[in-house]
């Protein structure tokens, strides 16, 4: 199978969906003529023209709200946020409009919308540009949240997200855009709400999403090599819907879990999952579920410190050793 980058996989998914459905269009800052601030939409404007790939002014509330309105009438906008951090200037449009209009209309209206862009720290762009809002948006019933960790998942999930009839918040990672994975050339879809065992193991479950999952995979190697601990690594892929069955299945097998996330800890995704595991698998657990999140401060600029602020292999290993 050919290896392609996470960026390229997204680009292919967008391209294929634009071709498949005339109602799909991309909109965002610099997505067209500039080819995307992170080049995810490279070549698409040239190929599909200005109707299908639209450069927008710096008016996130305006063009995200526009997209919600257009989706109400049956279009399928894919909105790029240059950073998910900028959702905070358009939060009301996403949460109150896309998030509630189906409900408040008793099902008369729906919003088949994808909002996508990178949501990560670790690139020294400071506190305002490094938010990871997956926990907050998944708090809102009506919205869906997806955080792919690999090129394969990014492509399959993006295609599903675009075809989904609800609003999907699709969170990518600038640090992954350049990384490559095997991706088949034939079309495939990955359903939302289905987690993926990225490494089988028997001694402990490492559970996470996005780039933290990759860190967990590296930690699993260290655990195997240095500590003779065989960790299972479960990639949530989708935060809402959430594959609780897969989580519980893994934990019932390993009886131990460490949750890994780049979210900040207070009410992070791992808080929800920890609470759920304890509630539903209390008697299966040989130890409390532990968490590894970003260090609990705004994202620091200073490059060496920001590396420490995100979950590190060392922190994951240390957490695992506390309970193994």
């Amino acid at each position, binding site marked *: 199978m050919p290896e392609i980058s996470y960026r390229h996989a997204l680009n292919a998914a967008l391209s294929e969906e634009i071709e498949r459905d005339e109602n799909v*269009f991309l909109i965002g800052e610099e997505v067209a003529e500039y080819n995307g601030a992170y080049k995810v939409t490279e070549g698409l404007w040239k190929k599909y023209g200005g*109707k299908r790939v639209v450069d*927008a*002014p710096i*008016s996130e*509330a*305006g*063009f*995200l*709200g*526009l*997209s*919600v*309105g*257009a*989706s*109400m*009438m*049956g*279009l399928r906008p894919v909105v790029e946020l240059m950073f998910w951090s900028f959702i905070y200037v358009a939060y*009301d*449009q996403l949460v*109150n*409009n896309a998030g509630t*209009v*189906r*409900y*408040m*209309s*008793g*099902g*008369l*209206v*729906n919003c*088949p919308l994808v909002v996508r862009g990178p949501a990560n720290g670790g690139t020294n762009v400071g506190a305002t540009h490094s938010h990871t809002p997956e926990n907050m948006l998944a708090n809102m*019933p*009506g919205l*869906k949240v997806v955080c792919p960790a690999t090129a394969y998942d990014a492509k399959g999930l993006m295609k*599903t997200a675009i075809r*989904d*009839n*609800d609003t999907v918040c699709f969170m990518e990672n600038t640090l992954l855009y350049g990384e490559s994975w095997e991706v088949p050339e034939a079309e495939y879809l990955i*359903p*939302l*709400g*289905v987690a993926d065992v990225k490494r089988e193991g028997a001694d402990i479950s490492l559970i996470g999403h996005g780039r933290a999952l990759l860190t967990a995979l590296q930690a699993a190697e260290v655990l195997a090599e240095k500590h003779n601990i065989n960790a299972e690594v479960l990639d949530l892929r*989708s935060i*809402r*819907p*959430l*594959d*609780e069955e897969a989580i519980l299945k893994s934990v019932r097998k390993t009886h131990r879990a460490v949750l890994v996330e780049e979210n900040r800890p207070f009410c992070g995704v791992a808080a*929800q999952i920890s609470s*759920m595991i304890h509630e539903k698998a209390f008697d299966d657990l040989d130890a409390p579920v532990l968490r590894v999140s970003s260090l609990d401060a705004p994202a620091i600029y200073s490059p060496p410190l920001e590396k420490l602020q995100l979950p590190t292999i060392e922190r994951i290993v240390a957490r695992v050793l506390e309970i193994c």
Partner: protein
Amino acid sequence: MEKLAEANEYAAAEVNRNLTNEQKIGFMLDMFRIRRFEQEAAKQYSQGKMGGFLHLYIGQESVAVGTVSVLGEDDHVITAYRDHGHALAVGMGMDECMAELYGKKTGCSQGKGGSMHYFAPEKNFWGGHGVVGGQTPLGLGLAYALKYKGLTGCVLCFMGDGAVNQGPVHESMNLASLWDIPVIYIIENNGYSMGTSQARSSAFGECLAARAEGYGIDWDVANGESLYEIRAKTAQAVERAHKESRPTVLEIDTYRYEGHSVADANKKKYRTAEEIEKYKTEHDPLRLWRKVLVEEGVLDDQAADALDREAKREAIASAKFAAESDFPGPEAIFEHVYHEVDHDTVSGRTGKHFFND
């Protein structure tokens, strides 16, 4: 407000010139229906039949009826929370509207949206939105979709005079002009946002609509007393949208008689009783339209009263309908959250969507 006589010169405008008597009487009935519906709703509200907010449109009926009356098949409407007038004007039934206020399953939104959140997409009516200014990008998007699909249509997006100071309104105006979107922003200027007069909430040059100039958008101001003027100026904007795909900002001067909402205990504190009285007696759009029709010989007083009675009967019947309807069952709480779950698609079946257990 400018002189009414002047406003009524718009009777000669193209869109008004060929109106049939039936149509003119229809407008009268539509306005009576809104007023009677709301009076009935207020009565039932005070008897505890509904909860939350009830923002009455009484005094502003000419705006919804006049603007909507010039729309065609591919023209759409979206508004804020003071939405009963627009809903009835686009042809929603009193029954489903009243039942929505009661929170009943027979309500237009199955009792899930309430007073501020009426919807009827099949009547080109896209809500009813509670967050001030929040509907303005949505209206833009609806119009964007019309253009995208190659339809010749437009969107009337209503907002209040207080809403103009929300950021999304400004962002929407820029986008509308930049991209030639056929959206018409109608500022229903009733002089107050809750207890705050226009002068205390907005700084402006000539008028609120003139802010459109900063975006190269055409704008106009209409006297909300006159159906003829409202229709003429809306028609002009609709034509601009249809023919040039250009937006318009249209400010319509009007007045609300009641409090901001029925629960507004201060309704006579931030404005004088005389001011309200003056509007009711001298500027009431129903009274004035009735006068026009009587003078034109389209209607006599008896016939007008009969229309009004008809509207009142309908409103009372709608309250009965609402009262006798059922509340939704508890299962309704988890319906209409996700399209895919409601339709039990593959996508709706993978993973957990709700997290109480």
